């Protein structure tokens, strides 16, 4: 089970002596044979589509009369002008959801890493298992939970005389401009909450992997050297879990920024995210150059942010 959790960390931190010692240095064709089929797959079905998108974005024309490659980058300006609010909103929602996931995920990852034996495995399974119930079904379950009339949360709280907690939370959201009318469901807050919930396992698993590798004796040593538990966390635990924090935040932020399911199911017309725009431009409006330009913009923005972030965090093993 421990290995399941090794899966998502993109930055599987290869610190310490775990790197394999390679003795034979002769160049051989074996690695290329091993790489060829997989890399070919990625070149044909990932790189080529990206190039197609780039080329599409520089074409002009319409569906009925066909497109011609003109190399005119104006569409990028149009895309930015028309949809910058959705782009900014997407990055903001994804950013907040990532921070929330980190805050929620870290204690659980730490808790699981500190367990032994069977209880550890069961907890890990429970983190991953929701994946197998389609995330659409689970997101719809949040609709039933959060709805103001007939929602399970409101009903349960009301049943024990705590209905005001639900209402006050709605008012608070309204005060914070996170809900237009005090509704909890169909508000920006609900969208961020949905993103947080959906990508939480992607945060927890890499965090768990880093924390599980953490040598407990280092924590004892810190305590022995006069560090209070808080200082031990700040100076030892947190820095040593950074690789997990970096991969966890990336694995949460990237898909969250491009997601539109949560916005569609839990949001309103003012929570439209960029993924929704791309989807409808592509599949409904059929403005391929604009959709392609938006796709490319989103990708470029994310890649740029990832590189700055990774450099700041000082984890070179990522790429």
């Amino acid at each position, binding site marked *: 089970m421990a290995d399941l959790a090794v899966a998502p960390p993109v930055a599987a931190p290869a610190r310490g002596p775990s790197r394999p010692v390679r003795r034979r240095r002769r160049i051989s064709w074996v690695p290329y044979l091993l790489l060829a089929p997989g890399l070919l797959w990625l070149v044909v079905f990932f790189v080529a589509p990206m190039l197609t998108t780039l080329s599409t974005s520089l074409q002009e024309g319409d569906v009925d009369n066909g497109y011609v490659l003109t190399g005119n980058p104006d569409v990028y300006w149009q895309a930015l002008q028309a949809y910058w609010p959705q782009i900014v909103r997407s990055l903001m929602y994804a950013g907040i959801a990532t921070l929330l996931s980190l805050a929620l995920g870290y204690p659980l990852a730490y808790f699981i890493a500190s367990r032994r034996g069977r209880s550890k495995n069961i907890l890990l399974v429970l983190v991953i298992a929701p994946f197998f119930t389609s995330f659409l079904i689970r997101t719809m379950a949040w609709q039933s939970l959060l709805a103001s009339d007939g929602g399970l949360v409101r009903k349960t709280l009301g049943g024990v005389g705590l209905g005001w907690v639900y209402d006050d939370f709605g008012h608070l959201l309204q005060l914070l401009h996170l809900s237009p009318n005090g509704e909890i469901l169909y508000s920006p807050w609900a969208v961020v909450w949905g993103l947080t919930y959906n990508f939480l396992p992607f945060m927890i698993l890499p965090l768990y992997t880093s924390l599980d590798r953490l040598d407990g004796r*280092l924590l*004892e040593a810190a*305590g*022995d*050297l006069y560090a209070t538990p808080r200082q031990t966390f700040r100076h030892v635990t947190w820095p040593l879990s950074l690789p997990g924090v970096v991969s966890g935040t990336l694995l949460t932020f990237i898909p969250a920024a491009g997601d539109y399911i949560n916005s569609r199911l839990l949001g309103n017309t003012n929570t439209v995210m960029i993924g929704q725009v791309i989807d409808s431009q592509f599949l409904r409006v059929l403005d391929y150059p604009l959709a392609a330009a938006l796709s490319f913009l989103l990708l470029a923005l994310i890649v740029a942010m990832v590189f700055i972030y990774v450099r700041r965090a000082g984890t070179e093993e990522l790429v």
Partner: protein
Amino acid sequence: MAGTRATEDLRLVQISKEFETFTAVQPMDLTVPGGSFFALLGPSGCGKTTTLRMVAGLEAPTTGRIHIGAKDITATKAYQRNVNTVFQSYALFPHMTVLENVAFGLKRKGDSAAMTKARQTLDLVQLEQVATKKPAQLSGGMQQRVALARAIVNRPDVLLLDEPLGALDLKLRRQMQIELKRIQSEVGITFIHVTHDQEEAMTMADTIAVMNKGRIEQLGDPATLYEKPASTFVANFLGQSNLLRAQITGAAVDGVMPASTHDHDVWVAADRVPDGLRDVWIGVRPEKLRLGDAGRNQIKGQVTDASFTGVATQYLVAMPWGFELMVVQQNDGSPRAGVGENVTLSWDPGHEFVLDQSQAEDAGSGLVDG
């Protein structure tokens, strides 16, 4: 540097530790004099590391109190105790430089001169040149010295060493033993050294407590433990012993007592025999036995094995009743015996120790007379 502060005694009063499934340390009392080099010696699982961890505050005792001088520190947390540990695994922080590692404790205490003191301590362990490196870039011996520096820089009341030399090779270990001894006398801190290596304990410590099954079997200076072990366990764990089953057959005459082992009459020093004991083990160290009849007690036997080690020759000599005695003959020019040769073994009264026969004979696993 020595004596800048009066170092205080560490006192353990009726301390014990029970885990869910077993008792690691039986209730025991122990006083470690301030400024001494003290060793806790015993086989793995004897409770020595648990005792150490209780002193460090990493384990809460089930019963008993821990005092340093007049202060009762039983209820304090590890980070509140002026006690530091050199961990067996060193436990150096991999993300910090050597200097940051050494300064860590002082910084937590808010010492503004942390960096300067850390540099000075690195000087003391002769590592000033690697201050900016990460621990992973250092050799095992260097890491060990960093771990030591990181602990002593705090000038703790008590420094705990948990098998700190276990991971080093023999030559480096000898070197570090001398180094540790030098540093201890230089800084004058109480050192408590946990080890399963009897030679290491004897080389370094002023006082040794031999532990077995969660109890202290014997406490004393190395020579006393070796010459007058109080139990078969100590006799066998510290060096090697030949234990002969014997009876005391008479009263003391001129300071010696007659005894009989397998129908051989021997004499033992009267002051070595506990009062009123009749059935005893007579223990003789291999190097106290001599080939030839120069000693007063004599037994004949046949050499079954001889191995030459340079400074000495080690023999196994079969007794008429089947038991094999181990004999170490110094390479002092005297003639060596060959395998199959019949020899006379002798020793003088007073070179033996006498133990109660009711004790488990193979405690500490030695050579035991059947």
